């Protein structure tokens, strides 16, 4: 069970998640607007305008949809992101201080498998189904490298507690001597948040895939949830690889926020530049190339950790 639940962090964490997700969505929309030749400033306010539009939009019903599974999946995306962020230490404590924080973050991003597939399945629509299956095929490729990448900081710090991992990095961040693990982790974050380039499940060639039949509040929840999952994954990377609340001058929680913003913004900017990755190509790549590299990274980290002690 949770070692300690600091409820005083609940509202700040949720407000912070919402604010950063909105800003990251704004950055993505602004870059999109600039690519299309429209003024960048109009792009920045697109998320707010889309929110207003979707709140007024009529919800869509499809024939014989499995409404229980569909609506539970669309409502579950944002709570999943909130749960992931709950384990991230902001300053000295997290919302949930758990000695097995790394394993819980891993379990939560596996729940995203169920949520994204159910989004595609529930609508009883061909394009949704195709999107859901594409997501699962990709997930089979990125999940094992992600899991092995999560063990690298745990080995390096000798603990599964996010606060202890973040404290063990004083001086040298884990991203410096575990870069392959960091790259695999970022790849996994883009995967479970269905963001470019890992978004064939929501691709335009299947009319939006898992997003195809969503409208109104459900669409808003899922679109916002994708950004929220990206930000949550980036926030979890901060104690794991980027030194936690380490940093001069400003208080600890500010540095966590800054690092989260920089990482999620970076993932959005870099992700937009890459073409959408195809599941059939990526599956073999993930298992035959990336997984051995990440296991080799774990070996390097283990040897260094044993040599230091």
């Amino acid at each position, binding site marked *: 069970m949770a070692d300690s639940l600091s409820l005083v962090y609940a509202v700040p964490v949720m407000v912070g998640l919402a604010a950063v997700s909105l800003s990251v969505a704004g950055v993505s929309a602004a870059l999109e607007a600039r690519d299309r030749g429209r003024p960048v400033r109009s792009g920045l306010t697109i998320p707010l305008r889309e929110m207003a539009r979707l709140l007024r939009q009529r919800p869509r019903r499809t024939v014989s949809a499995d409404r229980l599974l569909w609506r539970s999946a669309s409502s579950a995306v944002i709570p999943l992101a909130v749960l992931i962020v709950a384990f991230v230490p902001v300053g000295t404590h997290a919302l949930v201080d758990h000695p*097995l924080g790394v394993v*819980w973050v891993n*379990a939560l991003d*596996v729940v995203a498998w169920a949520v994204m597939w159910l989004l595609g399945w529930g609508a009883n629509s061909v394009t949704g189904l195709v999107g859901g299956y594409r997501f699962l095929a990709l997930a089979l490729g990125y999940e094992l490298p992600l899991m092995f990448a999560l063990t690298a900081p745990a080995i390096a710090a000798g603990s599964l507690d996010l606060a202890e991992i973040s404290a063990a990095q004083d001086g040298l961040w884990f991203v410096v001597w575990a870069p392959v693990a960091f790259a695999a982790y970022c790849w996994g974050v883009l995967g479970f948040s269905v963001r470019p380039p890992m978004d064939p499940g929501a691709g335009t060639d299947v009319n939006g895939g898992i997003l195809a039949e969503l409208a109104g509040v459900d669409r808003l929840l899922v679109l916002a949830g994708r950004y929220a999952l990206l930000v949550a994954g980036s926030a979890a990377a901060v104690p794991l690889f980027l030194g936690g609340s380490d940093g001069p001058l400003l208080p600890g929680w500010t540095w966590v926020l800054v690092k989260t913003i920089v990482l999620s913004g970076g993932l959005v900017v870099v992700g937009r530049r890459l073409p959408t990755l195809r599941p059939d190509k990526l599956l073999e790549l993930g298992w035959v190339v990336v997984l051995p590299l990440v296991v080799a990274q774990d070996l390097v980290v283990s040897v260094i950790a044993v040599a230091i002690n």
Partner: protein
Amino acid sequence: MNAVLVDVGFWLCAVVSVVAGALVFYVDSMARATYALAVSFVAVGAALLLMGQAYMGVIVILMMVMEMAVMAVYMVMFMGMNPALMPMSMVHSHRSSIAAGVGTFLLLGAGAVLVPWPTRRGAPTADVTAALGEAIMESHMIVMIAMGPVMVVTIVAGVVLSSHRTRYDRLGDDLDRRPADEPQSGGVGR
């Protein structure tokens, strides 16, 4: 933790897991059956968390959600159903199965209640997860060593049983055709 909270939590998990398990065979759609089973497993994982096994609980939850997500794909593949809800009840020897189920419950329940269980021997260490890790790596290392080949054998056997095109189809009769003859080649170009 507060004993009353633990009791309430346990009964909640117990009811959810048994009811969801029974629903697996009652609901109208394959996806619902699969995710009812997932809910049952998550409830058992939560019960394990209440019984002091933090690592085993979260591992059960993690593995079972992943397994059910993949199992749903297989269910749909074999049974070819669409997301629409349609009553499906394909059973044989229904009455004798119910009798067997009830009989099993009575037998095991009688054992659970009537056996004179011994008193607790020892107490859990302060860090159960670390103790488990040390046990696997030191005193019970044979388990880890044995699991490795078992998993490899499982993978090999599963692939052999279910693969449609083997290496002779891909690489020709003399295993010398490069690149391989694939309907959809993977990303590495093997």
